[in-house]
């Protein structure tokens, strides 16, 4: 690594996408890194949409980020390689390759670098997201709840508090937003242009890095919003009904016959379940600490709380018993009930009492629960409703 502040090239690959790219570029320009110097470079792969490249170039000039348009379409792997080569030639310490349909938190680069720095054997750190292949942090309605800079900052900050510089080993990296320490490119090489217009090139790169003894990691504390398939579906890279390119998968199967079984083993390892559960809990508890939470007692329709609203509602489990489920901007988690004591379990989960308790319907068990909350000092509102079930 070079002396002085470390330098990071943030390369955003663009191919059309008028509805997503401007937001992505504004988000990139709004990043406020604290520990690294970040240069943003937009690599427009000769987007054919009329007027689009001119608009993006003007926006880049306005936002003071770099812009380059290839004279002809290269395809994703070779466009990515331009970013990697520019990072190598420009003497950068790190390079981030990012899709143009993401919103990034303002400290994304700091978090990614911190994770990469935790072990010199790390070849790449893939950011976490609502949409990152098998590693996704599921969200009920990400485009509604997460496509917003302030929310991405908040979610990222909360999750960072849970995972810090933890680097989770994964079978392969995903180049929707991936950090690579630049010196390592001299060992591992570039993306293989055999993958044509794209898909699977980062799988090949990751497996190449692993075969050289490097780790391929997911950075759970670096959360970005990812709309997904923003430009590749438009460009017709993906065949109808596919989420990847079958021909490229055949190349991976040929080169790495054990890859699929490694992915299966990772999925069965339950690492992801633990990550997702920890992240959801942290988000819900942090949100409740900031805005408080409300309890709704009654078999009401599934609530869909807005930003700043955290609700706990009762849902039947597979035996029909009520289980409290906490919700916040599309993230949901069942609260484990200890000793059949729903009231205490909810309060212990959040480490605080609810701001309000609302009962809907005439059922006695619900009113008993409400009384339990009331006895602990929570305000309870009874609303007239219908019987829960037909």
């Amino acid at each position: 690594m070079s002396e002085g502040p470390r330098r990071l090239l943030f390369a955003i690959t663009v191919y059309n996408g008028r509805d997503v790219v401007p937001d992505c570029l504004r988000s990139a320009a709004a990043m406020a890194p604290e520990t690294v110097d970040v240069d943003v470079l937009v690599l427009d792969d000769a987007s054919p949409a009329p007027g689009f490249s001119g608009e993006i170039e003007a926006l880049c000039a306005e936002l003071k980020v770099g812009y380059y348009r290839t004279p002809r379409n290269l395809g994703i792997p070779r466009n990515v390689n331009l970013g990697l080569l520019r990072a190598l030639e420009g003497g950068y310490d790190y390079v981030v390759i990012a899709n143009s349909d993401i919103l990034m938190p303002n400290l994304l680069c700091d978090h990614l670098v911190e994770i990469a720095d935790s072990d010199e054997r790390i070849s790449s750190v893939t950011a976490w997201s609502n949409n990152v292949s098998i590693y996704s942090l599921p969200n009920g309605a990400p485009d509604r709840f997460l496509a917003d800079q302030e929310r991405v900052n908040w979610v990222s900050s909360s999750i960072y508090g849970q995972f810090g510089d933890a680097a989770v080993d994964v079978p392969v990296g995903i180049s929707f937003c991936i950090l690579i320490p630049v010196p390592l490119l001299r060992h591992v090489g570039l993306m293989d242009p055999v993958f044509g217009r794209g898909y699977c090139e980062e799988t090949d790169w990751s497996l190449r890095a692993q075969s050289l003894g490097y780790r391929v990691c997911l950075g759970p504390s670096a959360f970005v919003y990812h709309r997904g398939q923003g430009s590749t579906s438009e460009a017709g890279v993906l065949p109808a009904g596919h989420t990847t390119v079958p021909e490229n998968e055949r190349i991976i199967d040929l080169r790495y016959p054990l890859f699929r079984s490694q992915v299966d083993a990772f999925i069965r390892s339950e690492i992801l379940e633990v990550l997702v559960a920890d992240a959801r809990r942290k988000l819900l508890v942090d949100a409740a600490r900031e805005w408080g939470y409300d309890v709704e007692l009654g078999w009401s329709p599934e609530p869909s709380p807005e930003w700043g609203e955290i609700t706990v509602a009762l849902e039947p489990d597979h035996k029909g018993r009520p289980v409290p489920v906490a919700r916040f901007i599309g993230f949901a988690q069942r609260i484990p009930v200890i000793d059949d004591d729903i009231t205490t379990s909810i309060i212990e989960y959040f480490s605080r009492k609810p701001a309000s308790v609302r009962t809907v319907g005439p059922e006695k068990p619900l009113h008993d629960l409400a009384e339990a909350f009331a006895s602990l000092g929570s305000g309870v509102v009874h609303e007239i409703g219908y019987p829960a079930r037909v």
Partner: protein
Amino acid sequence: MAEPTKQKAAVAGRTQRAKQVSAAAPSADLDREIDRLSLAQALRDFEVANSRVIDLTQRLISANERADTVQRDLDSLRTEHAVLQARHHEAVTSGAYRLAGRLLLLRSLVRRP
């Protein structure tokens, strides 16, 4: 997972100097530099692609030769098989074979208690 204390120390240890992100280089310089990188890499990619085509062509020729050999062997065995089948058919349809069959049947009937 990172320990909370470690996280706090890491955050506190940072130099709190929020920066603006910037462009990779002035626009004209950037264009020239990436054009140069792109051209150099395109030439390398061409060489690699060319080598791969030559390699694949050689492997295709080898595979074709192997397929030809296997096909020749198969044709030869098919011919041999057809000759043997014809000889077998000739034997089982001969008068001697039919007579032997009848004698065997007769013998088994005579020996039956």
